[in-house]
């Protein structure tokens, strides 16, 4: 089974860039953008998969981190474009439009937010955890709406996509390769983390919290670290997503965004390495194919999702590569 999953993973890893390169060769930038969207949503879901898939932490508030990344990209881009400093007091901080710096800032800010949210919400479990993460994401959403400095309800347009040293990010294929490179990096980090001592402890806390505590590992600390790392990865995806759309608005922070990220993971297969990639491919294709047929495509997405939850557990990877041996 493991070998079959590896084959499926390799196929999934190749199919997205192959499509992007082919579309670029045929002069179809729209399809390159579609592939970029897949890569970025998959990256966000890899982050969530760390908390949800490995740690069993059903966070319904990951849009908070996604949006924090998005706003970091938007705010830096705006200041860099207008050549105004980010902050004048107490110290002067200048803005940059270089993506690596923005990713770092996104990850740090989202990590701090995840630390605060995690400290409160991880004291609880089950339904409480779901509702509290949802509530905190909603808090940040309303803050973004009522804070007029960066667009408020209207959001923030990014006039010039942020840059990357030595790369023309305005070229769709170059931007795709940046996003895809980050996705591969995140997948590599995910697999190393999953097989590490930390990953073993994290999965053990999901399966039996009491046993883990009884052998001297503190479940809260393990979960908190996982939650923070998870938020940081999702935030980097958010920064890319804002650059892709050249827009960031409160919708990136909304509860439905959080829901979609969970949907991606379930469509692909919970806790599987390439589950988020498979899920993102399916989701973007559904959106594109159904959206072309009817403006009410979300109704059909709902029906498909309902069918997957009720009858088809394991997602696409489960279908292609079989079930995991132990859960």
């Amino acid at each position: 089974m493991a070998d079959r999953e590896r084959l499926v993973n390799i196929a999934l890893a190749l199919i997205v860039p192959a499509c992007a390169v082919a579309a670029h060769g045929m002069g179809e930038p729209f399809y390159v953008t579609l592939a970029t969207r897949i890569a970025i949503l998959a990256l966000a879901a890899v982050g969530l998969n760390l908390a949800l898939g490995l740690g069993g932490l059903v966070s319904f508030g990951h849009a908070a981190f996604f949006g924090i990344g998005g706003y970091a990209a938007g705010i830096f881009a705006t200041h860099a474009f207008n050549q105004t400093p980010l902050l004048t007091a107490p110290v002067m901080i200048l803005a940059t439009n270089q993506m690596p710096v923005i990713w770092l800032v996104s990850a740090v800010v989202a990590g701090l937010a995840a630390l605060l949210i995690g400290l409160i919400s991880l004291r609880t479990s089950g339904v409480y955890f779901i509702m509290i993460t949802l509530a905190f994401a909603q808090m940040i959403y309303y803050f973004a709406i009522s804070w007029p400095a960066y667009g408020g309800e209207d959001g923030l347009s990014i006039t010039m996509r942020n840059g990357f040293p030595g790369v023309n990010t305005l070229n769709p294929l170059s931007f795709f390769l940046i996003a895809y490179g980050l996705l591969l990096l995140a997948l590599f980090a995910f697999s190393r983390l999953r097989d590490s001592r930390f990953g073993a402890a994290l999965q053990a806390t999901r399966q039996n919290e009491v046993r883990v505590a009884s052998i001297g590992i503190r479940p809260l600390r393990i979960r908190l670290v996982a939650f923070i790392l998870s938020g940081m990865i999702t935030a980097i995806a958010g920064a890319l997503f804002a650059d892709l759309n050249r827009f960031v608005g409160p919708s990136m922070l909304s509860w439905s965004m959080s829901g979609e990220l969970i949907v991606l993971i379930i469509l692909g297969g919970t806790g599987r390495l390439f589950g988020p990639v498979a899920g993102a491919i399916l989701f973007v294709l559904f959106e594109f194919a159904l959206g072309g047929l009817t403006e009410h495509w979300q109704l059909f997405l709902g029906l498909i999702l309902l069918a997957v939850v009720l009858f088809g557990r394991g997602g696409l990877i489960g279908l292609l590569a079989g079930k995991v041996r132990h859960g």
Partner: protein
Amino acid sequence: MSSALLIEQALNGLQFGVMLFLMAAGLTLIFGVMGVINLAHGSLYMVGAFACAAVAAYTGSFWLGLVASLIAAAAAGAIVEVTVIRRLYNRDHLDQVLATFALILIFSEGTRWVFGSFPLYLDIPKVLQGAISLPGGGQYQLYRLAIIGAGLIVAIGLYLLIAKTRLGMRIRAGESDREMIGALGVDIASLNTIVFALGAALAGLAGALVGALQSVQVGMGEPVLILAFVVIVIGGIGSIKGALAGAILVGVVDTMGRFLLPQLFTLFMQPSQAATAGAAIASMLIYIVMAFILAVRPKGLFAVNA
């Protein structure tokens, strides 16, 4: 700041809280008896509002619309329970979240398909139009007072139902031990359907009542749903008493925060800055309150042993 304005805002907070209670009571009942987290509760609120607006527009009577909202929401709830929720009792919370998230998509898009994207409007019934005088010299909308009254009557009715009737006894028994009451011969399946339909009817009632104050549109349910989550997290999941206390607390804190904070901030800020900062903090206030309550009591104010 006059005392009349203060009283008006306090009443607005109470009215908001009562409306949240109607939502939260259903959610907490459903969770208490069935252990299911129902994200689609906001959709049932929307169904109630749309049913009321459509029937009121067709017949010209708000009261017929109100009856229609109860029937439509309860029927939608019963159908959802029998077709979907019933399969989720033994699943983990993740599956429940996803299935009910899918239901939101289906309800929202289905409603948009039938009614279109434009909001509907619902008029306040003639009897309840107008205002009454407040002690401080201000005026207050009669309709909002009626909502407060209706909500309190429902709260009392719900208490009597659960504390004094046979159905209420079964609900309480179901909350403490599902398997045992099944073994004693109570038909759990139909009890579940009844509780779900009851919760749905309360949500539908809330939607219809609020529909006359705001526009009736797709997506109106989810912001209220998330606030209802905050309410039951504060009150303690499964506790009706907690839902009432939490709802009033959230309603009053939110409304008064939006009213008072910008004024408070003018004491040490420039007026324009105070207005934005005050509004921004006020929009986050109930979540901050929730965080504090959870830090002290992680299971909510009126925790039940579940």
